[in-house]
């Protein structure tokens, strides 16, 4: 008997810490064949298509400002779609956060995965990292969508700096909401409440001037305001505040650190 166990021990690799890449790779495999990846593409595609429809239905009235020389082409497209993008980011964050943990809720795999020699904090952090990465892909694709619209409508030279800003800054500002939604979605099996919160808060949050500007939902609007260089059409009363791009990034990072740590602690203490 002792020989058998000895042989088995020798065959098993020595215990070592699971590398971060392994967590990332394991989660990538889990995400395949789910709606996470299609959703990442559908978000920006949907917003862009909405722009196409808007300009096809009533192109000339919408382009009047540009033709008269009062508005730049960039201001025209972001004026139509900026607020839609804000909503899409908030909603997308809620959906991604929900779907990435619902994979575990639905298949009842928390108990299997957390029974492995893995760090629960890492498991949580990697889920956030993947959701953030998918949201980044969406944001970059959204910028591509703006380019497509501007080229299609012959709206003049492309504003590269503004395009880079709109790809990055609203994404960074959405990460606190993503972290909040992930916390919510992880803490409960039933995803109805997290999704309801995810749908409603962007709608209320963006127009709600009573909400402090540093709150996660307002941050997205603020970031978008900065990105389009002024007042966003459709967001009445929203204007540039004291939130410079640097402050927005700083606040977002702070929110992410607090909310992701809280979620990691919650998962670490959780009984599964």
């Amino acid at each position, binding site marked *: *008997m002792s*020989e*058998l*166990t*000895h*042989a*088995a*021990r020798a*065959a*098993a*690799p020595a*215990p*070592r*810490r*699971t*590398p971060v890449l*392994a*967590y990332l*790779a*394991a989660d990538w*495999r*889990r995400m*395949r*064949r*789910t709606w996470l990846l299609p959703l990442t593409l559908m978000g920006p595609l949907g917003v862009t298509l909405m722009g196409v429809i808007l300009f096809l239905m009533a192109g000339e009235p919408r382009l009047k400002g540009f033709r008269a020389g009062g508005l730049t082409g960039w201001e025209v497209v972001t004026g139509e779609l900026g607020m839609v993008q804000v909503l899409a980011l908030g909603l997308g964050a809620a959906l991604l956060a929900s779907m990435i943990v619902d*994979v575990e809720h*639905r*298949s*009842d*795999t928390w*108990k*299997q*995965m*957390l*029974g*492995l*020699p*893995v*760090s629960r904090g890492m498991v949580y952090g990697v889920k956030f990292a993947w959701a953030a990465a998918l949201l980044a892909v969406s944001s970059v694709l959204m910028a591509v969508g703006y380019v497509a619209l501007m080229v299609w409508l012959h709206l003049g030279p492309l504003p590269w700096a503004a395009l880079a800003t709109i790809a990055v800054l609203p994404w960074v500002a959405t990460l606190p909401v993503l972290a909040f939604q992930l916390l919510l979605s992880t803490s409960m099996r039933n995803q109805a409440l997290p999704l309801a919160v995810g749908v409603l808060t962007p709608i209320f949050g963006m127009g709600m001037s009573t909400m402090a500007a540093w709150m996660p939902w307002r941050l997205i609007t603020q970031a978008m305001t900065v990105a389009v260089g002024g007042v966003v059409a459709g967001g009445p009363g929203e204007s540039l505040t004291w939130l410079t791009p640097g402050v927005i990034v700083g606040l977002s990072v702070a929110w992410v650190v607090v909310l992701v740590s809280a979620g990691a602690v919650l998962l670490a203490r959780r*009984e*599964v």
Partner: protein
Amino acid sequence: MNDLVVETKGLTKRYGKRAVVDRLDLHVERGQIYGFLGLNGAGKTTTIRMLMGLIHPSAGSARLFGRAVPAERMQVMRRVGALVESPSYYAHLSGWDNLKVVATLLDVPDRRIGEVLAIVRLTGDAKRKAGDYSLGMKQRLGIAAALIGSPDLVVLDEPTNGLDPAGIHEIRDLIRRMPREHGITVLVSSHLLAEIDQMATSVGVIHGGRLIFQGRIEELRARSREHVRVEIDRPADALVAASGLGARLTEAGDALVLDSTSPSDAANLVRALVARDIGVFRVEERRLSLEDIFLELTGEAGAA
């Protein structure tokens, strides 16, 4: 050197005031197939969850290979594979992909996935979606996931639950091979005594959260006292007639039960009964089955 693979001391889990697991002292030695037996709701799964570090004990401690869980679980879980309660699987992934997720986290080469698939006989279905598997296949996939890290201890919680007889037989066979062929210690829970009896070398009986028996299965079987049962027509008179045989005689309905199997005792009893003109229909030797012992054990514990 300590040869205890699993050791718990006063392990307790309370939900509110109710102790679901109550001061459990489990001892599983290397190379054993330890049958963890108890009715549904006796506390088996809760105990296993604590062993795996999935839930925190309210009191007491648990050690695997001498390491405390959950405090030192990162050091020891590499040596443990488990199937806790219902099998966990990603329905949208193939059987192979499901195992690959675990293999990636354990840093095990793909070759090992093929090996464990072969062990549980799922090689032919590796490419199919796990959601389309039958219950038995899902259960086997769960066992494959438990085996993939080449563990020294495998914990299987009700592995035959919901399986058809063929599936049960297959899994039982697989479990029996583990210590022999792979040097694995097995802790397997079940609510069926017959099942434990057919594969376990040691047994722990849990009832109402408390361990009411722990030892080799032979010790449990040694409790199966033999006795002689005599069916007669006038039990009331019979007890008086056979009073010469002493206190080992008890009345049970229309029969007498003699707590002895010595031929002379039985012969004396029958002689005494016939002498008093009492009709004897049947004399038989009886043995308490393991099932009877189990019921007796759990009955006692329930009454206490």
